[in-house]
């Protein structure tokens, strides 16, 4: 099984209750400890300080670590902090960044068409995945505006969010959810049975979450091997292969 973690980070946070994965090298060591081949990663500073710094650091610090795939975070083009949309997309091309993250609560903006219309159209057309946290009201509005957007909702749960996301899985074919905090008993099996394995992606949520938790849950889910391989990494590899930078 070639595991590909869709939600992992590194960098020293302002505060951590337990463990810190300070560097890209330490993250690779953690992946090795858990038997995970690759990670789609962010730098802690992207959340706490902002994308101006975090986008640069994740690219610089993952250089020479081919198993780590950098993601960037977006900001409204109207404030110009990350340049124009065209410059932002050119930067993604230059650095091979094939997925974006959005932190509307932490970075204080509305993730919608008014704020990000042209960029969200580009993401949709280029099939660039956007990773977001579980603001289900915001996600419902976003998908109503951009129904073909490739969206990956990470760290939903730990209380089951199924009553929120299952109606959206039914309606929007490019919506995916990760397993980093999907702790509900028999949840993976139930989602696979109803919606197929294509909609779930293995994520660890590390270092905030313990990397091995979702790993064992996914590895031992009561589903067939093909479905498990898809969730473990196949789905994410397919999504990233579809990206047209």
């Amino acid at each position, binding site marked *: 099984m070639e595991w590909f973690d869709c939600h992992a980070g590194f960098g020293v946070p302002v505060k*951590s*209750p*337990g*463990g*810190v994965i300070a560097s890209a090298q330490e993250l690779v060591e953690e992946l*090795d*400890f*858990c*038997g995970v081949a690759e990670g789609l990663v962010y730098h802690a500073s992207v959340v706490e300080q902002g994308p101006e710094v975090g986008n640069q650091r994740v690219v610089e610090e993952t250089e020479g670590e081919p198993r780590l795939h950098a993601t960037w975070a977006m900001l409204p083009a109207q404030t110009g902090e990350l340049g124009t949309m065209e410059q932002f997309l050119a930067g993604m091309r230059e650095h091979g960044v094939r997925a974006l993250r959005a932190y509307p609560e932490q970075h204080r903006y509305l993730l919608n068409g008014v704020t990000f219309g042209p960029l969200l159209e580009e993401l949709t057309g280029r099939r660039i995945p956007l990773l977001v946290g579980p603001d289900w009201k915001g996600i419902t509005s976003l998908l109503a505006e951009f129904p073909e957007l490739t969206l990956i909702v990470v760290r939903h749960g*730990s*209380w*089951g*969010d*199924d*009553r929120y996301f299952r109606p959206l899985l039914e309606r929007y074919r490019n919506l995916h959810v990760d397993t980093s*905090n999907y*702790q*509900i*008993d*028999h*949840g*993976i*099996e*139930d989602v696979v049975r109803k919606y197929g394995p294509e909609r779930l992606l293995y994520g660890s*949520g*590390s*270092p*905030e*979450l*313990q*990397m*091995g*938790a*979702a*790993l*064992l*849950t996914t*590895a*031992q889910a*009561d589903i067939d091997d093909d479905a498990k391989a898809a969730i473990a990494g196949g789905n994410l590899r397919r999504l990233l292969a579809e990206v047209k930078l």
Partner: protein
Amino acid sequence: MKNSSAIAREFMARGKCEACPVVDMHGHYGAYRVMYFPRPYAEGMLATMDRCGVSCIVCSSHTGLVDAGRGNAEMARVIEEHPGRFLGYRVVNPNYPEQAAEEVGRFSREAGFVGFKFHPDGHTYPITGERYVPALEYAAEHKLLVLTHTWGDSQYDNPTMFGEVAAKHPGVTLLMGHSAYGKWDDALAVARDHDNVYLELTAAYEIGGIIERMVREVGSRKIVFGTDLPWFDPHYGIGAICFSRITDEDRHDILHRNAERLLEPFVAGGRRAR
């Protein structure tokens, strides 16, 4: 993978570990309003337990959280129907003191109960309140366990309040449900300072690095495993323990040895975990 733990390797390969059975000290039973449970009843829970190598689970019924008498009776039936696999905590609702006294009075080891379950947040009544005292005194007299929900920022069951109860009732073995999630410094200090307090891991295990910290600062002999099943897949918490940087001896302590030691007085009469 480079994790050399024999326990971790067997769980990854088989989903269970012959040498390291799991005892779940924090379970529930049945449906509950807050979320969708694919398998909230005995047949589904037992299938999960078998898949994950969980030999025994100690539960309070969800029904009991809203209707203690009815829920405790339901739990007694489940225990009776599945001897050795289910044990129970009787729920005490302090908002109805007379009913709470009846539930304490109905306590029976023979029926497979090991103590009481408090849910101060759910019942919006402080764990330090007088209405819990009869159950605590009964538990001290009869050497029972008390599992109480705790949460870091709660006004009803934060770790400081839990510590006050632990100090006032040193004869009661108190399981700090969720290890007062979020206020780790205070929770670990309470567990370290009181011999009668155990950290219970449900949900807490998810936090990166917290298990290592608990083992380092409190010791693995004061940590017990739980899942809230039918809420959480036991593999999630087991995975967190398997991939923490602790020893296999620590894993044995957390996953079963401590629970077996606590449950020994209650299972000696034939209800021993399978």
